[in-house]
């Protein structure tokens, strides 16, 4: 039984078909690394999974919820499918703890005290216990991104979508974020990551997906795929970035 099942999904922006029939099965505990050239549709695919984008045909079922129907309960879907972005997107008027507490209090209606306890727990997990009351502007990029991860974790998602979450970071800050993600992977969190960190994809990923021109061009076990890419497109891509 897959946790996320994507069937022949097609998506266009106007005349521009961006996803041309994507199918993918993701099981509980999978760490899926999606790689591919700029414009190949990686972000769009991720955003379709949590309903930030709609698609024209095919189907996506995440944790038993059919995404993209007219009656889809997006709130229920997104309680189970978290997302972390390249640009952190922390709410600047709230402290780290308040950023984390917002959705539990507003969406899950837990008390302030309970939300604060959740914030303390998830911020400890990302190594930021000391920064609970700091504002985003007082944090480094790496710290901000870790708060953003903690903020998603506070909703206890079953799947976490990560769209190039280290791409906006200075190189020396990338590792602190990757370590947090690796820790999550080890604890069994299901992750779908769009990434340019090839080594991370190989070492931590359980599944590699290479997207090309809006299709899954090649997929498999990361180590095997990297060692012996079958298609010339992936060979070329790995040659360029790896």
């Amino acid at each position, binding site marked *: 039984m897959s946790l996320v099942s994507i069937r022949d999904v097609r998506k266009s922006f106007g005349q521009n078909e961006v996803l041309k029939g994507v199918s993918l099965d993701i099981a509980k505990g999978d760490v899926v690394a999606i790689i591919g050239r700029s414009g190949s549709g990686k972000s769009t695919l991720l955003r379709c999974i949590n309903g930030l984008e709609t698609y024209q045909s095919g189907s996506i079922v995440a944790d038993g919820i059919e995404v993209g129907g007219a009656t889809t309960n997006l709130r229920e879907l997104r*309680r189970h499918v978290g*997302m972390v972005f390249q640009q952190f*997107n922390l709410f600047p008027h709230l402290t780290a703890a308040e950023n984390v507490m917002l959705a539990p209090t507003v969406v899950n209606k837990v008390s302030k005290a309970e939300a604060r306890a959740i914030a303390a727990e998830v911020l400890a997990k990302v190594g930021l216990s000391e920064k609970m009351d700091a*504002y985003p502007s007082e944090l480094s990029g790496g710290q901000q991104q870790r708060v953003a991860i903690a903020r998603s974790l506070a909703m206890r998602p079953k799947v976490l979508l990560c769209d190039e979450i280290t791409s906006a970071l200075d190189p020396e800050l990338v590792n602190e974020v990757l370590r947090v993600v690796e820790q999550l992977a080890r604890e069994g969190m299901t992750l779908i990551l769009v990434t340019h960190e090839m080594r991370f994809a190989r070492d931590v990923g359980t599944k590699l997906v290479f997207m090309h021109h809006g299709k899954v061009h090649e997929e498999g076990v990361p180590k095997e795929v990297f060692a012996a890419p079958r298609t010339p497109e992936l060979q070329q891509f790995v040659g360029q970035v790896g």
Partner: protein
Amino acid sequence: MSYKLQFAELLPYWNVLLYGLVFTIVLTIVSTVAGVAVGTAGAAARTFGPTWLGRIVAVYVELIRNTPFIVQLFFIFFGLPALGLKLSETTAAFLAMVINLGAYSTEIIRAGIEAVPKGHIEAGLSLAMTKWEVLRHIVLNQAFRKIYPALSSQIIIVMLGSAVVSQISAEDLTYAANYIASRNFRNFEVYLFVALAYLVLAMLTRSALRALGRVIFKAR
């Protein structure tokens, strides 16, 4: 050129002046609160609401921003009775002020909402918040922080513009001035005094708004 100032001639009318002053202050406070509420709703409708509602709001905003305030006021006070809606001078004055500031603040607040990064909205949605929850908890706070100075200026403009309501005999500060001048004929003293009163009022409003801003947006 020698003119002897005789401010003492205003003294017998102190209660008229005081009444006018209080009227103008209350008019400003009420229309600020109600006008900003209308503006917030209007801006929310234009950015987060359904298209048809956004269109209606846009028409309202353009109608108000492209016509003189005094005409709006006359329309409400002298025009609407033709439709059977007869309002007192005071009610008409308050209504016109709210409608006017509501339109201007809709535009100002909308600009603030549109300046909030789209990513913050998507982050909120991804946390399972509805778009109205996102608006309330994430967008509006940031929007108001950004446009607070512009909104403050607009409130002062509206406060000074409120002098126009004296034209329908709503008993504001300017009405008091007209009233006194027509009785003691000390136009120079009367209007000089009232001009100073507006000046002080505007400066006090500015400081009050600044202080209020510091309290509301105390974080960081």
